[in-house]
């Protein structure tokens, strides 16, 4: 049986530290001292998007719950923790735009309990950068002095470590993950997902170090064609009208992506909730029950809307990152540097663009893309932000 650590792709230094911590934790459980302080009560996993922060956190949780204390990958503690079903591993995976304070308060209460089946009570907060200010304050006390056997694992993208408030940051031990090298990504795609070698190599070379994105590109035809469409934009802006066609396409893709996901889940969730609240019943007291059921469904719809907005933004953000990568490639090409390209399969286009544009105008375009990303986090209507960006892309 392969150890759980094999899931963490290309992060040898971080894995080493976590392994030590896990064995120190096992020693603590056995009643031995931990003189080197290998284990601690709060960890902050940071790294670029796609580097596997949450995977690393889950793996660490598995190692803590492992009956052998090493993360063997075979015992029930390992398997359930990795699958996210372990009773003592609490996962907070925000699907909406932010994590609310009430969610955190209930989490803090749950975290104060002693572990039931395993040896440690583990709380994983994915996307800790999405904690609202109130929520991170609610968490503060618990992270500072948790009960003996409780461990907090927070994950946050490293390009914004400031997004996690400094009071929380200072109470955690930092685990920095790096951008995994393409070879490691290609290997894991080939081994774990059974992708053929050439596709795996291609996907690893164009994913920008994002493991999940590489897997998506390798396995999903629609994702590949969307990427192609996005990367054709820079050289496809000939006539003034093209600005709107391209912007429209970017927005529509994001919207349809969000719509696909909501279609698949929203109705089923609402139906499930209605059933749980006893809809369709007859007899006394039905009206009152129906009212509270309606209120619950309304709340669910609110959450679903937040989720759809997030999907839409995430899809758009992926496209913008691809675009920014292309302009970076153009700059790399025109400067004659030998650095690896983000989109090696579009090398010819970036050469053509490098011949046509001055570096200054390429830089202006790159700036426009980054500004658009900023604007979207400011809640600017995506259509307005994207159209302004594409206008600049055309002008230079």
């Amino acid at each position: 049986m392969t150890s759980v650590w094999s899931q963490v792709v290309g992060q040898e230094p971080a894995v080493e530290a976590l392994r030590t911590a896990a064995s120190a934790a096992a020693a603590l459980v056995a009643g031995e001292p931990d003189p080197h302080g290998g284990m601690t009560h709060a960890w902050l996993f940071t790294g670029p998007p796609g580097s596997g922060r949450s995977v690393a956190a889950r793996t660490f949780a598995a190692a803590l719950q492992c009956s052998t204390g090493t993360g063997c990958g075979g015992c029930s503690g390992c398997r359930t923790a990795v699958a996210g079903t372990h009773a003592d591993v609490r996962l907070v995976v925000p699907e909406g735009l932010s994590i609310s304070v009430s969610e955190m308060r209930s989490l803090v209460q749950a975290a104060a309990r002693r572990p039931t089946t395993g040896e440690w009570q583990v709380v994983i907060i994915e996307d800790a950068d999405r904690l609202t200010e109130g929520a991170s304050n609610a968490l503060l006390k618990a992270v500072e002095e948790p009960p003996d056997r409780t461990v907090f694992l927070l994950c946050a993208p490293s390009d914004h470590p400031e997004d996690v408030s400094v009071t929380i940051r200072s109470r955690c031990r930092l685990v920095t993950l790096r951008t995994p090298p393409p070879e490691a990504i290609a290997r894991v795609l080939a081994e774990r997902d059974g992708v053929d070698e050439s596709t795996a190599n291609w996907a690893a070379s164009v994913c920008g170090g994002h493991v999940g994105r590489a897997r998506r590109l390798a396995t999903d035809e629609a994702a590949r064609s969307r990427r192609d469409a996005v990367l054709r934009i820079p050289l496809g802006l000939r006539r003034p009208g093209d600005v709107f066609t391209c912007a429209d396409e970017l927005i529509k893709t994001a919207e349809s992506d969000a719509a696909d996901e909501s279609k698949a889940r929203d109705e089923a969730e609402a139906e499930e909730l209605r059933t749980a609240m006893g809809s369709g019943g007859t007899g006394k007291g039905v009206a009152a029950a129906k009212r509270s059921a309606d209120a619950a469904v309304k709340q669910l719809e609110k959450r679903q809307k937040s989720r759809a907005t997030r999907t839409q933004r995430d899809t758009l953000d992926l496209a913008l990152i691809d675009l920014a990568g292309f302009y970076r490639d153009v700059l790399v090409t025109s400067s004659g540097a030998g650095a690896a390209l983000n989109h090696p399969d579009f090398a010819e286009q970036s050469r053509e663009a490098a011949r046509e544009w001055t570096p200054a105008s390429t830089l202006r375009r790159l700036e426009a893309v980054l500004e658009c990303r900023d604007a979207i986090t400011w809640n600017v209507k995506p259509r307005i932000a994207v159209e302004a960006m594409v206008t600049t892309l055309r002008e230079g």
Partner: protein
Amino acid sequence: MPLQSMSPWQDLGVTASSAAPAPLHLVLGDEELLVDRAVHAAVGAARAVDETAELTRVKVSDLTPPELAELVSPSLFSEGRVIVLEQAQDIGQELADAVLAYLKDPAGGVTLVVVHSGGGRSKAAKSLPTTLKKAGAEVTECAKITKPAEREAFVRAEVKRAGGRIDAAGVSALVDAVGSDLRELSSAATQLVADSGGKVDEEAVRRYHRGKADVTGFLVAEKAVGGDRAAALETLRWAQQIGVPHVLIADALADAVRTVARVSAAGRGNPNQLAGELGMPPWKIRKAQGQTRGWNAAGLAAAMRTVARVNAEVKGAAADPDYALERAVLDVVGAKQSR
């Protein structure tokens, strides 16, 4: 004028003065002032017959069929009673059945007034107005007044009610200054008649009312895209004065600029044919084609960046959204003039 004779508020007085009050009234619509007046008229009619007539107002959501039966059951001396069922659009099937059962056998001296918005969710609520009409209800239509012409007719009728006269210029000046809220229009009209001694004209309106009550983001955007700096700033200030949300102004500005950019990118053409291609209604294209004059590609690009910037600024990126909007309007006007 045919419009006036058809207006719902015209015949209210007639209802109030008719000798025998109708036992069943249906007040249909959701223009609050008119609904209130219709209910008052019905009560007045009942009191004209029996001065001691008792008034009961009750929301249908608070009412059960037995309670309704109690309200409308015949009394010993058949004293006058007016029962107003409010928000009948929320009525349930059981209560609707109870109302219909009562209508088959109405009690003497009882006036039933049903106030219904015209909408409704349940089948019983939707079909209630038709059933009541069939049962011979006296119907008063109180639909929301949306068209400018209707609003002007309303003002004219209000002035007449108060015993004065108003000319066309006065009407439009008053609507401009007071806005579209009927209560305010009505009280302003009454006040003006009292102040000016019966004859209301534009000058009289101007003496008591200044400024603009209805400014939307679209108006600001139209002036800005049209390149009229002074007018754009003036409307923007009015909009800020009356509290149009910043976000709405910013959105309207963005929409106007992108419409012009889009239409000018599509080139000259028949609006009806372009409509499908651009996904806009033909009238919008026709209007934008008029506005494209004086815009060049560079100016439009600058304007699009400006509106994208101000969109972020009004959502918290700027310390002072008022200033951000003003600057954006100036920038858009400037982008048009830089050739």
